[in-house]
């Protein structure tokens, strides 16, 4: 029994470790190793062509998309940050040209909502299990019934030990 519990705990610890390591590596800033061309390409893929419908400038052949692509490259070469470049285009054409929702203000709900929903779901499940457990242990047994349960448990434990030994 104890071995089973230990191996289950170990599995949880290992799983948690894998998740933490994945999150740490995933959140590491890889932009330091990006070349200017890669940065410009990444920005062009996340800024919408103002003349098109939701299509990034990187994929559009519209003349204004060509102009913006060339200007993004020039701005990257001038050393402007991604945030500065994104806010410049949002200022000229509207916030909607940013295909990645902002992580601040009202748009932040897009990033927060999934975690909030998972939290609510986990909380709900925990409460539901806790309630079921309390309901099942809340039944009062008579003395005879308690002795019967005790006997069954002892018999079960003896049987389990003999199975493990075999």
């Amino acid at each position, binding site marked *: 029994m104890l071995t089973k519990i230990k191996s289950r705990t170990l599995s949880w610890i290992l799983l948690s470790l894998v998740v933490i390591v994945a999150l740490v590596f995933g959140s590491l800033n890889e932009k330091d190793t990006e070349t200017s061309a890669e940065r410009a390409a990444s920005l062009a893929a996340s800024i919408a062509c*103002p*003349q*098109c*419908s*939701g299509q990034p400038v990187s994929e559009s052949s*519209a*003349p*204004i998309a*060509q*102009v*913006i692509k*060339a*200007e993004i490259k*020039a701005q990257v070469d001038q050393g402007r940050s991604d945030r500065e470049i994104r806010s*410049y*285009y949002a200022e*000229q*054409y*509207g*916030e*909607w040209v940013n295909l990645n929702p902002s992580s601040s203000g*009202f748009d932040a*709900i897009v990033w927060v*909502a999934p975690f909030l*929903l998972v939290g*609510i779901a986990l909380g*709900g499940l925990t*409460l*539901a299990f806790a*309630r079921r457990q309390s309901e099942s242990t809340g039944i009062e047994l008579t003395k005879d019934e308690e002795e019967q349960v005790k006997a069954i448990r002892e018999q079960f434990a003896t049987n389990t030990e003999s199975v493990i030994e075999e």
Partner: protein
Amino acid sequence: MSFGKAGMVILALVSVGFITLLATRGTQSNQPNFDLVGEPAPLFSSQTISGSEFNLEQILLENRSLTPRDQVWVAINFFASWCTGCIVEHDELLTFHSESVVAAAGTRCKTRLVSIAFNDNKKDIETFFEKYGGDWPVLLDEGTNRITIDYSVMTAPETILVAPSGLVVKKIVGPITYDKLTDGIEC
């Protein structure tokens, strides 16, 4: 309240929140941006295809020391040799360039026209002007992309009228007419 009911309430609240978010969010629109009208014109200085320099800031600075009659209104025309709308409006621009604008009070106001090439090349622009006429400055260098975006231009032709004070007074998307461009000019 049971857990089932509580769950339903939470789900309903989240749904209402998302509907509110979608309903109140700004329309994702690819409509022209007219926010610049009434605002100071973005200043620029750039090379013309003939090699001279056009400096909007210089013109606006000079306006300060002139009487209203001598101050210059500037029309900035975003154009391309491949653009059919640009051919449509070209005669109207020729008129604007060759004649001084008569204001409602009868006075003759000074104007200047500058075209900014939009995703184009020098050879095609020269061929366009040889064919359709016109000798006003046409800007094309590494800085014209920035000017195009500073003026929130989406396509050609688009024309901006800048008052002598430096404020943008109108933005016309599509081919202009002489009357549409000059209406409201005073001096």
